[in-house]
């Protein structure tokens, strides 16, 4: 089965849609009601919807942040004020009915059973998910005769993922539930821009493998460049995103938080030869070292960004549309191969990126930890460990 790439839609969802339609970049979208009001989603091109999925984003069911309130099936809206016990007893069924009916009506590629967000490792995680959403959604799915694969959404944090017993319980539960797949979202605790936690990465590969071995479809959301590594476990769908909060899940996006004045981040450029987003000031240096531009990926957006008049700012669409094209190409190359061959290609890509960083270092460039290649050694190690488990080396 071909590796698919879905756009994780966020605040600038139009950039993703443009990328999909104009640049033929990616295979579909994960529609986000947090940012897209219902009337916009209702009017979307059916051909796009057919290739996409809808993420109900019920993570905090009492908080209809942003455009979530435009969906009458959002728990707080359905129940006119969400409270756990009251919802489970009196509104869960109605909510499930409306949500499934809506997704069914959109003609999507997958139908999603939503999840509730929990921090830590609550002992009642499975029961609460089952009682709040899962059981009622499965009942409604059976009633509605849904003919698309059904995905159960899971938001798992690092504590859960690294706790073998806890994860076994979750895997036993989901593999015994009447679903076709899992839409997995990982909440990281580290603030580093790339994932450098080898234990976490290896656990994710193992979890994906276990799910696949149980015949389940696996969609992994909110991914950054670690999608390249995670492709080794052969998920069905990996995601790409624009702003950082679409490439790393952050529950704050769904919370009502006090607005503190924020300074926008420095713009970054994704570079496939480094498998990294490099902060803008370094780009000028690299352009001086490589005047022919051979270290940069060639897209129409790069040409625009390298114009003298271009004002580098994190809110410029070219940064992200360039990234979409570049990383999708990388994922496509990996996706054309399977098993050991895919691992070998990933390994080559990573070692080439390490070598490139060595060349830059030899020229006196010192990147900080969010632009450097320190993640690559970890990714390569994890890939090697996983490949050994799989008998590829």
């Amino acid at each position: 089965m071909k590796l698919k790439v879905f756009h994780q839609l966020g605040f600038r969802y139009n950039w993703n849609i443009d990328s999909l339609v104009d640049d033929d970049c990616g295979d579909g979208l994960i529609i986000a009601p947090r940012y897209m009001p219902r009337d916009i989603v209702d009017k979307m091109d059916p051909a796009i919807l057919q290739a996409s999925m809808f993420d109900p984003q019920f993570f905090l069911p009492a908080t209809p942040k942003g455009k979530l309130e435009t969906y009458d099936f959002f728990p707080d809206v359905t129940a006119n004020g969400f409270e756990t016990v009251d919802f489970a007893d009196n509104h869960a069924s109605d909510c499930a009915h409306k949500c499934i009916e809506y997704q069914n009506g959109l003609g999507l590629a997958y139908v999603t059973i939503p999840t509730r967000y929990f921090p830590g490792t609550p002992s009642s995680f499975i029961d609460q998910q089952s009682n709040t959403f899962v059981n009622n959604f499965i009942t409604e799915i059976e009633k509605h005769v849904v003919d698309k694969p059904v995905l159960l959404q899971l938001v798992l944090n690092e504590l859960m993922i690294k706790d073998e017993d806890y994860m076994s319980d979750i895997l036993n539960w989901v593999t015994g539930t009447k679903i076709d797949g899992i839409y997995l979202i990982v909440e990281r605790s580290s603030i580093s821009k790339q994932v450098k936690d080898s234990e976490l990465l290896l656990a994710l590969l193992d979890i994906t493998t276990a799910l696949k071995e149980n015949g389940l479809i696996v969609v992994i959301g909110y991914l950054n460049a670690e999608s390249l590594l995670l492709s080794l476990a052969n998920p069905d769908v990996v995601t790409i995103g624009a702003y950082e909060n679409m490439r790393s899940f952050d529950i704050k996006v769904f919370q009502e938080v006090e607005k503190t004045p924020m300074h926008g981040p420095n713009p970054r450029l994704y570079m496939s030869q480094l498998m990294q987003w490099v902060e803008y000031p370094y780009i000028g240096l690299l352009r001086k070292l490589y005047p022919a531009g051979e270290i940069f990926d060639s897209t129409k957006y790069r040409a625009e960004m390298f114009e003298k008049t271009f004002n580098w700012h994190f809110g410029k669409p070219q940064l992200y549309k360039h990234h979409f094209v570049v990383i999708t190409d990388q994922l496509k190359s990996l996706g054309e191969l399977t098993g050991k061959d895919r691992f070998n290609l990933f390994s080559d890509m990573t070692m080439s990126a390490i070598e490139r960083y060595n060349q830059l270092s030899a020229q006196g460039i010192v990147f900080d930890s969010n632009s450097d290649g320190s993640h690559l050694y970890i990714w390569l190690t994890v890939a090697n460990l996983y490949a050994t488990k799989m008998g590829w080396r």
Partner: protein
Amino acid sequence: MPYESEQALFDVALQTPFFKKLVAGENRAQIVEPKGLFGIPDLLTIHAKRNNVNKITTTSFEMKLKNWKRALAQAFKYKAFSEFSYVVIDHHYAMPAIKNISKFQLANIGLLSIDTKGRIYRHVTPVKEEPYCESFRQQLLNLVQPLSQS
């Protein structure tokens, strides 16, 4: 004897003749932890040649007790807007940095260490280099402009 804190190191450093020379005197100024640039230097010194604010030379300093690697990466960022950039490290912990002196030389980042008696040891002296990021250089000039008027 090591320094107890980076603040203590900073305070002692500024009392040394090396730093006093950079900040005292005509056409010289300093900014402590200037914001809005690429990273936040602990100290930025400015020297305007012949009172011409468009012909300034700046030196940025990253002061650390021992994490020389992180200090080196930070100091490199400051080269985006500064002609000179230094790492200043606690002399008590300077040996690992000194053993990696070639990295400082290659990156053209100065390396100083300072002991608790205020003695400065120069290990690498950088050469003047044009800042590598025009927009942050301009940002720096914008920061410096009000100083020249005061």
